[in-house]
């Protein structure tokens, strides 16, 4: 899996049952398709999907469009259930998948 410049902001530990907020910001130009007359046509190249898994189970998914700002920012919440890895995946047009992971310690 390729790498992406991304910042994941979330707590490193939480009490069981606590709702934690996860914010992710990735560096990506989110290029829109160009097909206007007189311009050189170019295909869309955006992050079209984002998903987050917690201890292997998907907890959040987002479908993005070219209407999402460049350097896509996403904020969502999850309930701390168990100590485990929260993994993040960004799916780009063309099939590239970028991923990151962070560990949440649940006490």
């Amino acid at each position, binding site marked *: 899996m390729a790498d992406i410049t991304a910042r994941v902001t979330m707590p490193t530990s939480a009490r069981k049952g606590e709702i934690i907020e996860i914010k992710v910001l990735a560096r990506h130009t989110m290029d829109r398709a160009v097909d206007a007359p007189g311009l050189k046509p170019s295909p869309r190249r955006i992050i*079209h999907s984002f998903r987050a898994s917690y201890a292997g189970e998907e907890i959040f998914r987002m479908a993005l469009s070219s209407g999402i700002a460049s350097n896509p920012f996403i904020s969502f919440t999850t309930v701390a259930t168990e100590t485990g890895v929260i993994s993040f995946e960004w799916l780009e047009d063309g099939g590239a998948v970028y991923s990151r992971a962070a560990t949440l310690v649940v006490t």
Partner: protein
Amino acid sequence: MADKAPTRRMVAAGLAVMPFAVQAQPMASAAADVNRSSSSENFAEAERALLAGRTPIAAGITLDVPKLSENGNSVDVLINVDSAMTREDHVRAIHILSEQNPFPRVATFTLSARAGRAEVATRIRLATTQNIVVLAETSRGAIHRAEQEVIVILGACVDGG
């Protein structure tokens, strides 16, 4: 984004492998739209498809967007849906729709009861001054709707941002 009327269908790629049962999307033209600068589907069609005959409840969503945005390339959107987020009754999808963008379907968030709160945020592009519409679908089949106008000084279609 070219300044064409938003008349072509929005890309639904990526929704295809969604594990949660979300509203059926028009899949047929998904691949074709990737290389287009506007959707084959307009705003009214997109909203009608998402509502699927249900009457939306005009309550339950707190939509926090600026009333005035100087730069349409990045507009903060914070959505909070009033929900207990239990296994039986939770928000399973939140859609952001734009009235005037080339693609009316801006984003779809898929949630489960594990979210704890139905609260999501992102940053969107706005072509021009327009209403932002948010639809939230619950696991019980209800659909909530909220709408707010954003005045955009410099639209996102002006430069490459």
